[in-house]
């Protein structure tokens, strides 16, 4: 039996999501989950939505377009990423136009015509959903959906077991940290765009790459930059 390159990459992704230091950044973990989903599956982008005090919030997205499309749904109060966060169940690849008439045109403008979702769940609770934005409903098969669910479950277990705070309050505190952290990341991205004249996507990629290279938590690096202290060795585009 030959091990394929994709199988190796899947194993690497699971390993990356499972092995995090005790003080890992929950936002970084969820962002990396979207990154792995995009790298391993035939999806245009990915985002994470959660139910926060009975209101759907986005946590993170793989790229600026996916972030916008997730935000659009929150503003329109309509769309698959809202439904998946509310029901917290998996959503098989679904054509947008038939179900979400207001959101579908905006998504189509970005080439997205269908969405699938798997639940972001912890051993003791359901948090929300990992949403997969598709250019074609047939681009994900059942095996792909299972893979997506396993990636999400791996991240969920890592989140739950961090600092041995496997209780609900501890998980909710981490979720809140992630929700607070995303604002810091957006402020830092704006700061980098203003300074280097790069795109928002390049700013996010640069942030993630620098945090990884320096073994710094994404949210900590973003906070430092948002306060105007851009590291001298920071390279905006890698």
């Amino acid at each position, binding site marked *: 039996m030959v091990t394929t390159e994709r199988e190796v990459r899947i194993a690497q992704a699971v390993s990356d999501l499972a092995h995090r230091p005790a003080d890992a950044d929950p936002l970084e973990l969820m962002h990396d989950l979207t990154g792995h989903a995009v790298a391993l599956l035939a999806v245009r982008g990915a985002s994470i939505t959660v139910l926060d*005090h009975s209101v759907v919030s986005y946590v993170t997205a793989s790229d600026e377009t996916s972030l916008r499309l997730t935000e659009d749904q929150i503003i329109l109060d309509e769309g698959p990423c809202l439904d998946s966060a509310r029901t917290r169940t998996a959503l098989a690849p679904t054509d947008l136009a038939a179900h979400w008439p207001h959101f579908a045109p905006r998504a189509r403008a970005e080439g997205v015509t269908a969405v699938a979702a798997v639940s972001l769940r912890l051993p003791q609770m359901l948090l929300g959903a990992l949403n997969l934005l598709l250019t074609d409903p047939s681009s994900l098969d059942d095996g792909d959906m299972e893979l997506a669910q396993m990636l999400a479950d791996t991240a969920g277990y890592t989140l739950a077991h961090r600092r041995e705070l496997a209780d609900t309050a501890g998980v909710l505190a981490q979720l809140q940290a992630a929700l607070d952290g995303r604002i810091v990341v*957006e402020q830092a991205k*704006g700061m980098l765009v203003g300074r280097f004249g790069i795109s928002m996507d390049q700013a996010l990629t640069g942030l993630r790459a620098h945090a990884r290279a320096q073994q710094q938590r994404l949210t900590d690096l973003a906070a430092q930059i*948002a306060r*105007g202290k851009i590291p001298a060795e920071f390279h905006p585009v890698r």
Partner: protein
Amino acid sequence: MAHDEFTRLLHRLHQAALDGRDLSAASAATAARLLHLQALTLSLRAASGTLEPLWGTTADGLGAGLEEWQYTLGEGPTVDAARTAKAVTEADLTTPAAAQRWPVFTPAACDTPARAVIAVPLRLGVATVGTLTGYRTTPGPFTVVHRLEFDAFARTALNLLLNTQPDTLADPTGTAPGPDVSLHHAEIHQATGFLSSRLDITIEDALLRLRAHAFSHNRPLSDVAHDVLAERLHLALDP
């Protein structure tokens, strides 16, 4: 059940914020009662870091009076929470430790019925937008549950605060220029960072600058943020 009533209050205020209502949607007296406090105040961080009273209960001697003291003295729990961006609590204002912590504020507070205080910064990313401060007339530690509830109310108050005119509270029926799901708009936070770097000002001042423009031109903050990022709108330092 007080807890259920508190949960309903949070939910109603969250919805009010989504509908574009400002802080006048929240009754400070009700919030204080549900948080087991005798006074509750919200201070806004204005330009250059100064604090201004924006909302709160009106009990004699408590709350507003003590806040004014702190702004003048530059000392006290509210000032500390705003400066350090961390929660501040003092379980017993009559102790020597409290007097040592705030040599001028503490005696002034002890002249009022206030005996315990909690203050948390209202944070938007790395920006401290203001402070929520609560006073209790009985000494004693704040329990974990009390702190969590205080934090939860502070988050909701922050949403309403963003719809509130920077200089003053509008009339009780006043609304912001159109619903603005502020915290969901990544562009608002991106534009804050962008402006901060372009004008070489702090993130707090950049946010104030954006909000001042939005209110003075009667436009949603998200629209202003979008134009700033598209470089269609060039905001200078002065409003």
